[in-house]
């Protein structure tokens, strides 16, 4: 039986961690993240790149952020207390190599879709809304295509992917320009993101009610919303995969919430959109990558002797409290992801149960 996408992503992460280039990148990011270091004669030396890593981490877009800062360093107005210097060429090459790994992975995953619709493939690319950056033509991925093949195949075996590619709707999108598609997805995404918790937006609630009560879509707007939701789900799964690859390359361990750090599971709610948790944890060990917003975590705990929770989750909110009276605590709000790394699987399941229309769309 073919391994699921989530499992293959973690297997690819393990391969990445062993690569020499990844180790060099880990070391580079680590160095960039330190404001100063001690030399051999124990004198403190400021980081020659200044606050480069700090700035790059603000946008939380993996290697893209580093390259974007490097490209635009002279155009960004920084407050007086911050400074940043360009990357050296060997440093830039390493970061480009990391970025190229993610780019190549996305290209391979979306190659078949691109044949159907260039617009659709672009819309599914997690980086499509970001400004282009200059990448050296010689930049190569850390993983070869052969090494990426299992994870790419698992992605293409996903039910959401197959529903999208099997649908004839791609031609509709191919008639639209990318900006229109972007607007369409962004509108739906806003609704989805506002529903990643115990509250669901009015429009989405109405939509899920229709899904529960009908066997086919009744309007073109519902069809387009369903289609957009599947696109968002798939794009988010690619985004999470890229973030896990980035973490693996940078030597960042998966965040694990377990009985050794969980104080309380404050909320555990299943809605028609997602399965949502709010978990309070005691301080988690600090490392130099702590400025990075973690996207994916694992909750693996026993709330009681009879209950065990083992779920991967996509973080939607994180708050840290440094109270000097009660200690350091962090509250994570997250939605669980399924084996296809879909974070809104109750919603996508409901859509797939009805199925995207082939005939209906022509009538509409």
């Amino acid at each position, binding site marked *: 039986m073919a391994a699921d996408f989530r499992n293959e992503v973690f297997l690819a992460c393990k391969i990445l961690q062993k690569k020499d280039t990844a180790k060099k990148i880990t070391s580079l990011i680590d160095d960039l993240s330190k404001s100063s270091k001690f030399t051999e004669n124990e004198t403190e030396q400021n980081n020659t790149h200044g606050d480069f890593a700090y700035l790059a981490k603000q946008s939380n877009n993996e290697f893209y952020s580093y390259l974007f800062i490097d490209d635009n360093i002279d155009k960004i107005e920084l407050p007086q207390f911050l400074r940043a210097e360009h990357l050296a060429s060997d440093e830039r090459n390493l970061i480009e190599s990391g970025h190229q790994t993610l780019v190549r992975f996305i290209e391979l995953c979306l190659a078949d879709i691109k044949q159907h619709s260039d617009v659709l493939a672009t819309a599914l690319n997690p980086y499509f809304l970001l400004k282009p950056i200059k990448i050296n033509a010689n930049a190569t991925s850390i993983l070869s295509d052969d090494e990426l093949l299992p994870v790419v195949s698992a992605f293409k075996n996903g039910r959401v992917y197959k529903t999208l590619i099997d649908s004839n709707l791609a031609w509709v999108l191919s008639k639209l320009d990318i900006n229109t598609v972007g607007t369409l997805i962004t509108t739906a995404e806003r609704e989805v993101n506002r529903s990643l918790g115990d509250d669901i937006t009015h429009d989405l609630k109405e939509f899920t009610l229709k899904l529960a009560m009908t066997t086919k879509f009744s309007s073109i707007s519902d069809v387009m919303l369903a289609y957009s939701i599947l696109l968002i789900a798939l794009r988010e799964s690619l985004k999470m995969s890229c973030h896990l690859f980035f973490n693996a390359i940078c030597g960042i361990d998966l965040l694990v919430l377990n009985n050794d750090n*969980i104080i309380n599971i404050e909320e555990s709610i299943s809605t028609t959109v997602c399965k949502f948790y709010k978990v*309070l944890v005691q301080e988690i060990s600090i490392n130099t990558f702590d400025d990075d917003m973690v996207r994916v975590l694992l909750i693996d705990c*026993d709330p009681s002797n009879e209950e065990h929770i083992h779920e991967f989750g996509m973080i939607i909110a994180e708050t840290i409290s440094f109270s000097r009276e009660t200690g350091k605590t962090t509250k994570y709000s997250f939605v669980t992801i399924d084996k296809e790394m879909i974070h809104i699987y109750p919603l996508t399941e409901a859509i797939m149960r009805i199925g995207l229309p082939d005939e209906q769309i022509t009538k509409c």
Partner: protein
Amino acid sequence: MSTLFSEYPENDLWRELLQFAYEANIKRFFKRHGIAGDDDTLNCIVGSFLQANEYYKAAKDADLQIAPLLLYYGSTNLLYGMTNLLNGKIVKINNHGMKSIISDKGSFIADTEIRFLSPNDGGVHVISRALGFNTNLTNYGDWKLREFLDSIAEINSDYMECYNTRTGRIAMLDVFNTPDGKIEKIYFKAENRDEIHEMLNDVEDFNKSYLHVQILKDPITNKECFILRHKLNGKSISELSYSGQPYLKAAHIKNGQSITIPTVLNMYISLFALSSLCRYYPEHWSPFVLKDTTGEKLLIEKFLFYARRMIPNLVLNKILGENVNYISNKYEEINTVKHVGEHQVQEMVERKIRDYFDRQDILSHSEKQI
């Protein structure tokens, strides 16, 4: 736990215990527990409880010269009566199950050594088993009296002061209910921080019960403390002191083995050591009582007070199978009115509105379907 009102807890406690000085009550107890006791057993239990009461009454007014001896005899009778009551038969005891060894090395009474004997029919072992503590104490080598005193929460601060140690085997807990759940704090001073931290590792099941310990400095009092939070599935491992304040008790490491002795036994064994001193070594005991210059006498007196108050209570708890708590607060009506904060009111209203609109949505969709 049952809470009883009393203005004289010690008297009322003994009144409760002395119900077992009546045959009819013992028979009722046996019947309730499916035990068939014979007449000898009944007489033995009655005698044990009555004698225990006499010794305790005498100990209350006795001088320190013999008070430990009277309390040890009283406790032995009481615990023996309890053992026979719980077993429904006379359990044979051959000797104390321990002996005292006077140390010439130490300058403190607490340096008196104790050696455990007769694991099968020694008094301390028979009583331990009746209390549910089945450890063979002879496997743990010789002890010093101070190793029992250091595990009694009620005298913990006096113990550290008297013997000038940085920590005993007790960590008192200050409990705070915060918006993020219950936390327990252990305050420390810079000089005993490491010792207390190390001691916590010796508390049985500490790592199963608590998350990693955090260290904080209170911004107002400037006092430093360890912050303890229970794990998601971590059970409470603290005990309650006489004042009701919870505490953690660390194990002793003896002969390479970890052992945590219950409070009632810590007290009983300590009483044995002190009674041996006053009964068999007056040349040591009398000068201590008459002209102690170390301050240890204050600690021993305090210990004797708590032993006199707590041992009978712990025995009653064991017999009744629940903790009996004597309080002097007058009866008050139980208030079940819940107070909710502004945030909670807002959340409740929001939830109600949301539920209302949800219902409306479902109804309108159902109508459309029809």
